[in-house]
């Protein structure tokens, strides 16, 4: 297989293209779902193919195929060149890039227990146990438990001489508890909602998750929400739990810092960004304690890698430092528009689509103290936890998030739960109201598997490190 792609790189070199790269990706997935003590679905999938990207005459072309052989590879090379030349013919602007240094090697993400070697019976028994715990209460109508595993074996070759193979193993899982009383439906998830709990790790990650303990907590909280009051409308102090804060970082910092989006490439789908280049190194994005950074080197996160899909080495850099906006997520091409080098954020969902500028792990640096200490400083407010809904405008300014649960904070203590909480705001105003971040002991990376971008839409896996944090003067409310 490797020789086939090296020959294709040589072929493209002989054709005299400015730059070309080839990705071959082989992916195996396993999904296991249990609902209400029945096996809802178990599936395995295997997918492989290659994509060829060519830069020539100042324009890009891309072609891919699932049929792997000399004929299909050369045909894809020629088609990618044809696309590049045709693109070049309709514009006078020319793409200029600076490829990174040639890299070679084989790299593996950490994995202690191969998840594909664990018997299905063991996985099902574990999920059924967690499900049984949730179903112990009469108002719990549905207990849903899921595990998912993935192995990605990706090879990358380019005309700069790179020859990189990366093998990633991913494991994840979560549970959802749906409690119903009359017309009232409440849901609690653990450890996170929307399947957002995946790590670059083996089956040892599943063992550490404690889905059974989480099932008991989810059950009790879902039932308690059935008779809880709606979250009252007010402007108040909020403490936001780590998983919800991860999504807040994702929507209001990660996406607006994508340089291709800033430059207008996403306007026909997801929109633009308020973080325009004139704001770089000047703009006050948040309070002095806001330090947000990208780090693609965190070993156990699904937002990590060794080299991106342009062959640029994974790294760490600041996006917001001491409250000031300082950096973009970028590619070779987008970085050239601001006179910079790529920050190594180009990734593709699969072999069949070209890479886009994507988040890696976008993290809020921890502060000091425990969650209890942060709550202890609140006289009157709420603790918000676990995402339920999300929405943000085309410039990434006006946002509204719904959470699964809120707890009233009174005189530094958690009191009653509130149902259906939402909070909303404008991105920089919100981050300027950040007054406390809990410490490293509360900090963890949340693996989010469903970030959508591009046309055709590409669903990417990203990570966000966060610890619970307090914001003052935030608009909250309760729906119905």
């Amino acid at each position, binding site marked *: 297989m490797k020789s086939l792609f090296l020959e294709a790189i040589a072929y493209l070199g002989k054709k005299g293209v400015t730059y070309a790269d080839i990705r071959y990706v082989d992916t195996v997935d396993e*999904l296991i779902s249990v609902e209400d003590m029945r096996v809802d679905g*178990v599936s395995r999938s295997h997918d492989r*193919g290659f994509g060829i990207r060519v830069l020539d005459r100042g324009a890009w072309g891309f072609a891919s195929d699932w049929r792997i052989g000399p004929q299909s590879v050369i045909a894809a090379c020629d088609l990618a060149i044809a696309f590049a030349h045709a693109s070049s013919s309709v514009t006078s602007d020319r793409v200029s890039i600076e490829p990174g240094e040639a890299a070679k090697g084989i790299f593996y993400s950490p994995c202690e227990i191969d998840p594909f070697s664990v018997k299905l019976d063991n996985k099902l028994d574990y999920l059924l146990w967690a499900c049984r715990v949730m179903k112990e209460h009469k108002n719990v109508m*549905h207990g849903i438990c899921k595990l998912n595993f993935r192995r990605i074996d990706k090879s990358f070759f380019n005309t700069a001489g790179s020859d990189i193979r990366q093998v990633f193993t991913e494991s994840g899982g979560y549970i959802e508890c749906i409690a119903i009383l009359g017309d009232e439906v409440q849901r609690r998830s653990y450890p996170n909602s929307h399947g957002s709990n995946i790590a670059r790790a083996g089956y040892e990650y599943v063992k550490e998750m404690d889905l059974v303990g989480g099932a008991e907590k989810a059950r009790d909280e879902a039932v308690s929400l059935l008779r809880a009051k709606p979250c009252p409308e007010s402007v108040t102090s909020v403490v936001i739990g780590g998983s919800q804060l991860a999504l807040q970082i994702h929507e209001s910092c990660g996406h607006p810092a994508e340089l291709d989006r800033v430059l207008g490439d996403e306007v026909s789908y997801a929109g633009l960004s308020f973080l325009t280049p004139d704001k770089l190194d000047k703009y006050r994005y948040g309070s002095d304690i806001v330090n947000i950074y990208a780090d693609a080197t965190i070993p156990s996160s699904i937002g990590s890698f060794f080299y991106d899909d342009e062959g640029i080495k994974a790294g760490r850099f600041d996006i917001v430092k001491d409250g000031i906006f300082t950096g973009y997520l970028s590619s070779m091409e987008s970085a050239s528009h601001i006179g910079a080098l790529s920050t190594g954020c180009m990734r593709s969902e699969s072999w069949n689509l070209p890479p886009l500028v994507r988040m890696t792990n976008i993290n809020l640096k921890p502060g000091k103290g425990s969650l209890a200490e942060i709550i202890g400083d609140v006289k009157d407010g709420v603790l918000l936890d676990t995402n339920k809904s999300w929405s943000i*405008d085309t410039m990434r300014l006006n946002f509204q998030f719904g959470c699964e649960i809120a707890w009233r904070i009174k005189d530094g203590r958690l009191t009653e739960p509130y149902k259906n909480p939402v909070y909303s705001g404008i991105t920089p105003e919100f981050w300027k109201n950040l007054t406390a971040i809990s410490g490293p002991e509360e900090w963890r990376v949340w693996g989010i598997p469903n970030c959508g971008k591009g046309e055709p839409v590409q669903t990417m896996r990203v990570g966000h490190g966060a610890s619970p944090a307090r914001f003052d003067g935030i608009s909250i409310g309760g729906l119905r």
Partner: protein
Amino acid sequence: MNRKDFSGPIDALIRRSEADYTIVSASRSYRKVLRFSDFRVKQSLSDDIIGVSIKAICGNRAGAAVAGSLEASELGSALKDAIDIACSSKPDKSVIPPSRNGVSQTSPSVFCPITDKFSIAEAFSAVSGIFDMARRAGVNIAGTLIFGGDEELVMDSGGFEVFRPSTISSLKLIATSADGGSAHSCRVTRDISDIDIAAETDRCIKRSCEARSPRAIDPGLYECILRPEAVGELMSWLSYTAFGAGQLYDGTSFIKGRIGKKVMDEKLTIYDDGKDSGTLVSDFDCEGVSKKKTYFVRNGIAAGFAYDTYYGNMYGLGSTGHAVSLYSSAGPMPSNIIIESGNSSESDMVRSVKRGLLVNRFHYVNGLLDTRNALMTGLTRDGLFFIEDGKIKYPVRDLRFTDSIMDAFKRIGGISKERVLISDPAGDSMSVLTPSILVSGLRFTSNAG
């Protein structure tokens, strides 16, 4: 590929299967995509993927596996996985083979040779023409031109076989002016020659000019004319949160427990019909079950749900032909939603509004806030206009709405006769054939940033 290239390896696979019942749903999707902005084609690509889903049933136990190739070794490995999973799974009485006549079916042609032969050169020429028009008008233009096709095959161990080749094409445009005007246009069709590229571009450019210099207005409750793109977005969310039997089962649909009761205005009828020629015809699902016309809301009364074989058996109703996948636990979903047309025109609706808004399109809608009440939030995008005393007065800046769509659709002032097919060819395969709808109150909760 021809039908034999597809069915040959799969037929051989099914004959080898030792499961009690084996079904295979194979699909190939091939597209050419030109994505452009700032007068440059930023992405030009050829994408060709194949997925072969195999479901094995052993007694009342099911297992599924997917191969991304037609190679015999890959298919054999997937079949073995599917049987192994079925043998390790737990019995479930709702697991049964799909119910059909067991004979091969012929699908109506949705394959257009013009689209199939459309060339890269023709595509770039079209995009070049779009750039020229936008330059002359002094607006920026972005969008996608997509053309290609799909091949879908369903075969089972009972001798059933159905194959459908189809073509697809689309043009999506967003025109933006320096002074804040923005407009959107999207046409999706099987036959690319049905898209009048110059006319679509011209309309989008003119609409962006009409939307220039938007003024800020206060959020609040407004009468609203929701144009088809806006209605289509809301319907897409309802198909995900309300219309499938999975949402009936888990109790989260706004229709659950309300069948036969009034849930929306009597003017409103919402159904799914994969055989309606006004939609992107898709007449069988991945289980090979013929799609039935399925009402969700009929004259404002909650009417029913979309079923696949599993949920159909669970509820004793049979499949309506809305299975989404052989291996996913997501449950059935509609794919060809239709809203019955009314007898108004958009200009009639504008004349009837005392103080309201004309909404072209929504952005980033989320329907998970409270699905039992179809509560959603989202923002307007690409053209929002203030209407006063029956006239469109001026463009306004975008607003966020947060409201129950079930409640908003209880207050319908009019439905247009004209309908538009809404679909996102770069996203999922769902389409919505919808009119414009006048609602007498939609709650806007804040100004966009």
